[in-house]
């Protein structure tokens, strides 16, 4: 076929699309829609409806027993302007997110570089480091609780005393709360990040490293100029998923510091993060409208942070071009 044969004079009207019989579209796509229907129904019932309902409740005063009373944006105003505990929860959450995500990625990357080969030793060590990621979460938290017990037999205190120190009330020291949470997160998450990084590193062509070696590039230079740039998609993936997960931290706070029915957040609320506060408001104090507003603010925060991350990543890509 040549260009002349397909060219159309400028004043000629475009050909009309072939006329289809009524119902043709339904006939054509009907089976597909039918097969999508079960998912669509479940999606609407278990995601769209709860989200819409939650949005409605966030605009109400609702105690789960009596009918909700519409209060407009009062819940959001109270949370953002006046609620000191919520502000503390946000501040604690950001400290935890920054600490846990950065350290998890750094340690995961170091482990990946150290144990990336297919040798038996590396495969064994990768398995060891990955184990915390597949262990039962509650059990792991209880082990950490034992480690930081105030008693002499608590592992942390045993170590401290070995070096001549005195027993400490680790879980009752406000300054220790976020570092303990970060330590647990890094210990539990670095192995998972390592596995993803190893996959990414092993996908980088060996020729690039061989050429760099011939040109005299050191290992460090190769890491900075070959490994890191080509690992960027994996880095971005780990960064975003870790960040979203970190914002939603709940179980460790609940299991380590919950002492009685209506108290969460540890000493002086030093471990209070957004989701435990949401739980506290919703299920300890029956303020479900208020708790729904917290849920939507959390959604907005994660949405914004993810948006910024994607924008920054896109900027890097454009810069590379």
């Amino acid at each position, binding site marked *: 076929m040549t260009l002349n044969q397909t060219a159309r004079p400028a004043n000629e009207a475009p050909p009309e699309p072939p006329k289809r019989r009524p119902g043709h579209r339904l006939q054509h796509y009907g089976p597909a829609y039918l097969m999508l229907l079960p998912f669509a129904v479940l999606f609407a019932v278990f995601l769209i409806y709860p989200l819409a309902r*939650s949005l409605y409740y966030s605009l109400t005063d609702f105690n789960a027993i009596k009918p909700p009373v519409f209060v407009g944006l009062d819940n959001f105003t109270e949370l953002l302007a006046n609620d000191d505990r919520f502000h503390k929860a946000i501040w604690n959450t950001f400290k935890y997110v920054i600490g846990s995500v950065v350290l998890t990625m750094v340690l995961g990357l170091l482990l990946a570089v150290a144990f990336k080969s297919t040798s038996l030793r590396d495969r064994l060590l990768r398995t060891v480091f990955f184990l915390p990621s597949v262990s039962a979460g509650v059990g792991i938290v209880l082990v950490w609780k034992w480690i930081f017990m105030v008693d002499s037999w608590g592992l942390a205190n045993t170590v401290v005393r070995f070096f001549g120190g005195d027993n400490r009330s680790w879980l009752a020291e406000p300054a220790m709360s976020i570092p303990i949470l970060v330590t647990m997160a890094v210990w539990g998450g670095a192995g998972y990040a390592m596995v993803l990084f190893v996959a990414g590193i092993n996908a980088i062509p060996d020729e690039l490293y061989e050429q760099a070696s011939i040109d005299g590039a050191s290992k460090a230079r190769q890491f900075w100029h070959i490994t890191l740039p080509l690992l960027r998609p994996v880095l971005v993936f780990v960064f975003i998923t870790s960040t979203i997960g970190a914002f939603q931290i709940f179980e460790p706070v609940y299991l380590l510091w919950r002492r009685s029915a209506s108290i969460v957040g540890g000493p002086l609320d030093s471990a209070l993060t957004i989701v435990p506060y949401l739980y506290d408001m919703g299920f300890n104090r029956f303020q479900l409208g208020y708790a729904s507003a917290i849920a939507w603010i959390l959604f907005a925060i994660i949405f914004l942070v993810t948006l910024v991350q994607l924008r920054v990543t896109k900027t890097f890509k454009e810069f590379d071009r």
Partner: protein
Amino acid sequence: MIARTKRFGAAAAAASLVLAAAACSDDGGTGQGTSMDEEDVDSITIWHTGDASQKPMIEAVGAVFEEETGVAVNVEIIDWADAHTKILTAIQSGDGPDLFTGGLSWGIEFGELGGLYDLRQYESENLEDNVIDGLWQSIESPGGELYGVPLNMTTYAMFYRSDILDENGIAVPTTWDEMDAAITQLQGAGYATPFVSTWEPIGWLDWFNYMYEAGGSLYSDDCSEVTVDSPEVVAGTEYWAKRFSEQNVPTDQPDISGFASGEYVFATGGSWNYDGLATGFPELEGKWSSAPLPAGPANAGSFIGGNVIGVMAQSEAPGTSAAFIDTAYSDAGVDAMLAAAAENNVLWLPPRTDKVMDTHLDDANKQALTEIFETSVGPPNCAGWEPASPNVQLALQSIVLEGVPVEEALANAKTEMEATLQ
């Protein structure tokens, strides 16, 4: 795409926490006091908050009730950690048991929400005369409704290593001054941490004991005024805080095993420690005992809590359920529970003080518990205490952990309590 999915999932996960209980709503209600005879039921169901070791006691009183009425009692155990949420969800969905047991303050809390029947609508032979005096202020609502009554008790007691006290020639302290002297002497003898609190040492519960012993109260008798900044409360709070700053009391709650090993000589804590020590450390038999908390300048006294039992608003057999509660207070009901407790080697403190001596503890501990119950006192029933208590606790913690002056911290606590006082 993954990010978008995760983003969406994040919101859904957060929202679903709230929505699990908020999917639908229903008005609670109060019954009309139907009698058991008007209700044609074969069985009733009770959710008991606690652990499986307590099930035989509820089943025992259930057997007594079935024998008397022909109505079977189904007992389901729910864990403390989930119980509050589960019962709330049952109330709002209208789908749950006939009776529940839970925290002492939950009766008023759920009752005020419309989730429980007022037990005063039903005839009772055993309730009014047998509830411990110090508990009425905790279970009777400000409006006079009785949404729940205690089923079993938990209280603070002071456990001590009698062998170590004997070795050091120290008598069991009965006052604050005697306790201070004992701690000083034991620290001099090499015990770095002679005294610990095993039940929320920097929580409001532990503080409540000292505040009360000093003559303080949280509210005025008619709940119209917050009195947490009174000189008595200040004195009690200063003494409580001194424990941590001067007597090396840990701010975190230790395990009772440190007491068993002789690291700690005194341990205040919940009455569940009787079981923990007896069954967990049988080698300690004869080396420990218990006593009431040392009295302050105004009162002897211990915080008392436990399980409250109430009738759910959605029950179709409220009269039968109320009759079951009455049976739990009868001689036959309490005796059945205590027999089951002894058989299973579990401490079950009945809500009747006259029955404490029938528990399977040794005589010294039974005597100590009887004395404790005579002066024990429950949390206030004033509306607003539940939502205010976390903020009061933060104010108290600021004294111990940040060195905030007692008067300033209590003024902050008062502000928080006044904000929720209705």
